[in-house]
């Protein structure tokens, strides 16, 4: 069975589709078969358009869920999450090692900024309780 990223959402949307389809069909049927006043016909058309728009959006979400399921399957078939090491010819490996040495040499040119002063990090002051000292002070 194909992977479903959100079965609960899919069931909710399927249910909404089942409510919308007869509403839209009924509204369209009324428009076609009735000899109703023009303003009422306009209202029926408006309601049918509104319901159809909602249906379109729901179907777009369902198609997106299908796409997620499909591509997740493709991803699994590709071996996800395992990443296999890439075999390398010795000559290429040696070249990469040499490149790495060059990069490390370049990085070695730089030195971290040295500290010039010392202080307290008061923003990270922590405390633990102790008994109040007996000696009064100051």
């Amino acid at each position, binding site marked *: 069975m194909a992977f479903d990223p959100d079965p609960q959402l899919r069931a909710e949307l399927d249910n909404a589709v089942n409510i919308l389809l007869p509403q839209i069909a009924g509204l369209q049927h009324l428009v076609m078969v009735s000899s109703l006043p023009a303003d009422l016909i306009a209202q029926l058309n408006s309601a049918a358009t509104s319901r159809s728009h909602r249906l379109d959006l729901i179907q777009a979400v369902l198609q997106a869920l299908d796409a997620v399921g499909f591509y997740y399957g493709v991803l699994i078939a590709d071996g996800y999450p395992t990443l296999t090491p890439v075999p390398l010819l010795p000559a290429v490996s040696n070249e990469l090692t040499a490149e790495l040495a060059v990069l490390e040499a370049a990085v070695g040119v730089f030195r*971290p*900024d*040295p*500290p*010039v*002063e*010392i*202080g*307290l*990090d*008061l923003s*990270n*002051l*922590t*405390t*633990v*309780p*102790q*008994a*109040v*000292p*007996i*000696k*009064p*002070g*100051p």
Partner: protein
Amino acid sequence: MADIILLNDAVSTIPIVYKDAVGVVVAKPATDVASAVTTGPHAASLGVVMVALPSGQAAATLTPMVAESDAANGGGAIGLTITDTANLPMEQSYTFSISPDLSPAAIDLDTAAMTTVPQAVPTAPGP
């Protein structure tokens, strides 16, 4: 730097930081060792020891040794001098005072200050 108030019922630990020329916190020099001492007429009222935090960072642990050392009793303004083996100057000077912890820790009835007003004896016999 404003005087830092320490409560007398708590031991405070403050990490030591190293800063570069533009004030950015940078790594501690590998072999550097920092130390700290309290200074001033009331230095003995505040104990200080250097500790290593779990992260490896050095920190100063400050322990109040008296119940109060602040402006209210003529004490306070206890200096803290930090030095290190690289002789870095201190970013700024720090002074501390020790004050009583006046935050409420429990609630109770002040029975000694109880007052009464008369009322009619209740008709319900009890108990």
